[in-house]
């Protein structure tokens, strides 16, 4: 059976959940080969988890260069593996950096690329949701090796224990790959909350909050559910919440199990970033707000009473 390369997304010694989802999706296409690109020592703590989710091989490519250069180390390793393995496909997480790895790999191997897939079929066809979720398309790669980026939370990760063989690969960077260098990585907002793009639960606030201070209501609700905090553009433009947390067409695209919109009207540009969420709930005082067209459950009411009550009730139920 052909192999399927899965680029492992990892941070601080653990495998990100999206990688387990990719391994699960990869199994329907061929034999998942997990590719770890990282600083020396990065792969060791990840192997067990990759095995648990069905990696038949783990390829480790470690080098000091990996932290110094964005994107290009992963591209170099994957391009060489595409050459030697002729995989059925390459699966990468649909993060900004993941898409850039996919983009460069597509150019280097002259292959078709499909981004933001919400599903992948056994024949390599990818399902994508376009125009703010208004149209669902199935696409296929016609040239080279299918390079597919998959949105977090699109596939349910299922364990399938395997005994992977482990191999090493070189990180060989040419001059072009070294042209951009990372000088430093600055953490501005470090919290205990999960990252927005791969969080299973997202609670977002909009103009209805009325002020930045009132975002503590949204944060408290997110924390009670173990979720991430998002915001509409109206809220980020007003400076109520950091830009990084903007959900929508010009912000982050999320596709969580649960999306809770608080005081958000549901403009098309906002929907573009959250429409593929599995379950959508909204609290809005205007029964005509377009967000209600999307919801699985909606409450027409004042967020200042509904949200604190909900947070309290969740606290009670979770004991």
């Amino acid at each position, binding site marked *: 059976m052909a192999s399927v390369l899965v680029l492992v997304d990892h941070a601080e010694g653990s495998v990100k959940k999206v990688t387990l989802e990719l391994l699960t999706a990869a199994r329907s296409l061929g034999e998942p080969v997990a590719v770890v690109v990282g600083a020396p020592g990065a792969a060791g703590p990840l192997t067990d988890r990759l095995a648990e989710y069905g990696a038949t091989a783990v390829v480790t490519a470690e080098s000091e260069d990996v932290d110094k250069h964005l994107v290009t180390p992963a591209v170099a390793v994957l391009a060489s593996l595409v050459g030697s393995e002729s995989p059925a496909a390459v699966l990468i997480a649909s993060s900004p950096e993941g898409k*850039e790895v996919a983009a460069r790999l597509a150019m280097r191997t002259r292959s078709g690329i499909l981004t933001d897939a919400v599903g992948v079929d056994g024949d390599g066809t990818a399902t994508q949701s376009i125009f703010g979720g208004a149209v669902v*398309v199935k696409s296929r790669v016609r040239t080279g090796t299918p390079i597919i980026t998959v949105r977090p939370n699109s596939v349910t990760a299922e364990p399938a224990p395997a005994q992977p063989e482990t191999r090493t690969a070189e990180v060989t960077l040419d001059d072009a790959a070294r042209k951009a*260098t990372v000088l*430093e990585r600055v953490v501005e*907002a*470090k919290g205990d909350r999960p990252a927005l*793009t791969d969080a299973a639960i997202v609670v977002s606030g909009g103009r209805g909050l009325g002020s930045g201070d009132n975002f503590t209501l949204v944060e408290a609700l997110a924390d009670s559910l173990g979720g991430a905090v998002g915001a509409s553009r109206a809220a980020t433009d007003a400076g109520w919440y950091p830009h990084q947390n903007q959900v929508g067409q010009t912000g982050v695209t999320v596709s969580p199990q649960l999306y809770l919109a608080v005081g958000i009207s549901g403009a098309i540009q906002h929907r573009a970033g959250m429409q593929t969420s599995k379950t959508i709930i909204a609290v809005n005082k205007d029964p005509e707000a377009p967000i209600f067209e999307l919801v*699985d459950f909606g*409450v*027409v009411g004042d967020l200042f009473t509904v949200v604190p009550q909900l947070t309290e009730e969740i606290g009670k139920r979770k004991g």
Partner: protein
Amino acid sequence: MDIVVLVKQVPDTWAERRLQDSDKTLDRESVDAVMNEIDEYAVEEALRLKEAHGGEVTVLTMGPEKATETIRKALSMGADKALHVSDPALHGSCAVQTAETIAAALGTVPYDLVVLGSESTDARLSVMAAMLSEKLGVAQLSGARKVEVDGSTVTIERQTETGFDRVQGATPAVVSVVEKINEPRYPSFKGIMAAKKKPVTTVTIADLGIDPGSVGLANATSEVVEMTPRPPRQAGQIVKDEGDGGVKIAEFLAAQKLL
């Protein structure tokens, strides 16, 4: 500091966008078209860099004849001239073909920086900066919320989920920008009048030495095989808050095993 700024004309996001039944490509005719919003920020950044460091700003677009409206807008904001790659053979080109064509066009204009937007609202690929850097073999400085130029050294703040990375490279480089970077100017009346006289060069793929057998829908590296309007979501349950709205949501969450 000579800069090429890439702009794309896209259907207005407020309009209902659709794929044509005939060839499953974007219907660009029947809807209002505007400059891709983030590209306004790219034009603004190019103009600010020019104002600070001198040089010329050239607008580059690949798109049908109608895309001249978007070129004019960039020129009226203050760009100096434009290069328009327009050829019926390009219809339906995929991202790889688009990047190859734009890279070929960039081969005909001298530049220190290529500035572009981080994402187009129609394709939403966010791949162009990476693809062009790869093809041109130059530094990829993408996702910038701040750009600093010191001689031939370019340093950006690349927005990340938790903050930013400071990334540096030398010219020539490709820089893509996010909307946080600046506040685009509105074209002034004077700018609009001046734009009418600015040179716009239109080139075909033959002018760029591109093989017609490598571009367009028939040769695209990927294809849409099926399209369906979004399956209507099952009508949700909407309740009016009677003082127990929060509890009702918690009950719903529990019933869905989300609690």
